[in-house]
């Protein structure tokens, strides 16, 4: 555990001096900020109830593309620089490395998310939003972020190239978030059982409940188990070099 925190601490410090991290954060905040402005205008013109669900839905889409840029460096860079060899020849176990990196990613993700709390606060000042769906939406964002980070970490574990890691991460995210479930809706010849299975695997499906404010433990468990699964695979990838043929 001590190793885990040492690794996470080092990684967070290195996020804070990384230009890419600032660039990604700035781009993220700019895009979601513009979108928030638009939804405010639309809501004001339509005299609609103030709600954050569109904003959260939009943030989810943006994160699908943004998170891989946060995770791409985590293991690929260590492999390229040779520091992976140094860390893993120290008395550090592979799962400690995986979890340390994941934790660092999660902390940075939360730091990115923190300024967006200004949106519901703005709405509180000028209107009377329902805080229930807002909190469940943020819980959804947290769990969704964990899934994306674990996918990105796995992508970063299988290559030395940050660019390859980013591309793999985006592809993996898109697959989970959109393409897995798509056949269930688009292909009419698919069997009902298969369609149900695909719909269950579809990440978007599970997120909708959070965004609409209906908390369901199944969705929480789904996200958590997906995260644990990808972290487990990442650890196995790191261990793979030590398997005897």
């Amino acid at each position, binding site marked *: 555990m001590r*190793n885990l925190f040492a*690794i996470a601490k*080092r990684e967070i410090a290195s996020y804070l001096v990384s230009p890419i991290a600032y660039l990604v954060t700035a781009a993220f905040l700019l895009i979601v900020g513009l979108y928030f402005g638009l939804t405010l205008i639309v809501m004001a013109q339509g005299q609609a109830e103030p709600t954050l669900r569109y904003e959260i839905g939009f943030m989810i889409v943006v994160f699908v593309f943004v998170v891989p840029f946060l995770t791409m460096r985590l293991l690929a860079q260590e492999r390229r620089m040779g520091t992976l060899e140094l860390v893993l*020849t*120290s*008395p550090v176990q592979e799962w400690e490395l995986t979890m340390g990196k994941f934790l660092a990613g999660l902390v940075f993700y939360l730091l990115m998310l923190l300024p967006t709390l200004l949106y519901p606060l703005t709405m509180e000042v000028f209107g009377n939003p329902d805080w229930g769906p807002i909190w469940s939406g943020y819980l959804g964002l947290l769990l969704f972020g964990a899934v994306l980070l674990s996918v990105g970490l796995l992508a970063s574990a299988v290559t030395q190239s940050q660019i390859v890691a980013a591309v793999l991460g985006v592809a993996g995210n898109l697959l989970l978030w959109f393409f897995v479930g798509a056949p269930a809706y688009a292909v009419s010849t698919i069997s009902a059982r298969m369609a149900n299975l695909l719909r269950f695997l579809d990440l978007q499906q599970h997120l909708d409940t959070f965004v609409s404010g209906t908390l369901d433990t199944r969705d929480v468990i789904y996200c958590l188990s997906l995260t644990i699964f990808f972290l487990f695979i990442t650890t196995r990838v790191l261990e793979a*070099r030590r398997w005897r043929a």
Partner: protein
Amino acid sequence: MIEVEGLTKRYGRFTAIENLSFNVERGEIVGFLGPNGAGKTTTMRVLTGYLPPTEGTARIAGHDIFTDSLEARRHIGYMPETVPLYPEMTVRGYLHFMAEIRGVQDRQTAVEEAMRLCHVQDRARDVIGTLSKGYRQRVGLAQALLHRPDVLILDEPTIGLDPRQIIEVRELIRELGRERTILLSSHVLPEVSQVCTRVLIIHRGHIVAEDTPRGLTARLQKAAHLVVEVARPTPELLPALQALPGVLQVDRSGDGRYEVLSAPEQDVRAAVAEAVVHGGWGLLELRPVAMSLEEIFLQLTQEEPPPETLSSEPSSSEEVEPDA
């Protein structure tokens, strides 16, 4: 401290090292010598637990590198060939992190001591990315010392350094070797002969020789080698020397200089001196030449040429003097 038994590592069909066995005792500095691709780095990666052996095993301070890997790793300080550093960290920050994941209790003291030993205190606050190659190398070495390991494994510790830095690092290694066990790899031969108490020559995954640098030189002298210089050379000198009992071959290497090869068990120096003096050629110098480690190394690692070409060719070319 390091016990290696029948260590074999294959990557698919490629055999990097095969059936390697050796021991390194406490306080020894052992040099691992071989051309690029001989299996030095692979051996070190196996010993440090980064890669598993395909067959065989090794123990570090009594701990098996595979079954008791974590404990074995606690006893090792490792500096890989391309010194792995985090360029965005400061020297001190990096060493603190490394000390932390090595489980050092008093990190403050450990970091300061390692920096002092490797002479990097003056750059403690500098970002590693801005350091010169020599400093990086020393930071890499400092990192390996943090937890005061019994065993140091250093892969090409002086590669890419300038001559002054090389001397410093060698000095440091000798200093460290007084209390620790050191296995270092190199393809620079003078380095190994200067620093190490024992040399293992590895070639194509096999240990082809193991001895002290001096012993290796002596053992491999298949023929004694003399350099003779005379003041007044005449064409008769060459056949005269060749006729001496025990002399195998004489080559003219320059004006008045001759190289005499003799059977190793026979000392022909007295006979050569007498012959030169008696013939009136004027003896200027008579000196035995020890084979350099370079020559030994080449001899051990080159494919053996077929024996016929060795004996017949050189003598005939020497005897026929070109007509001007």
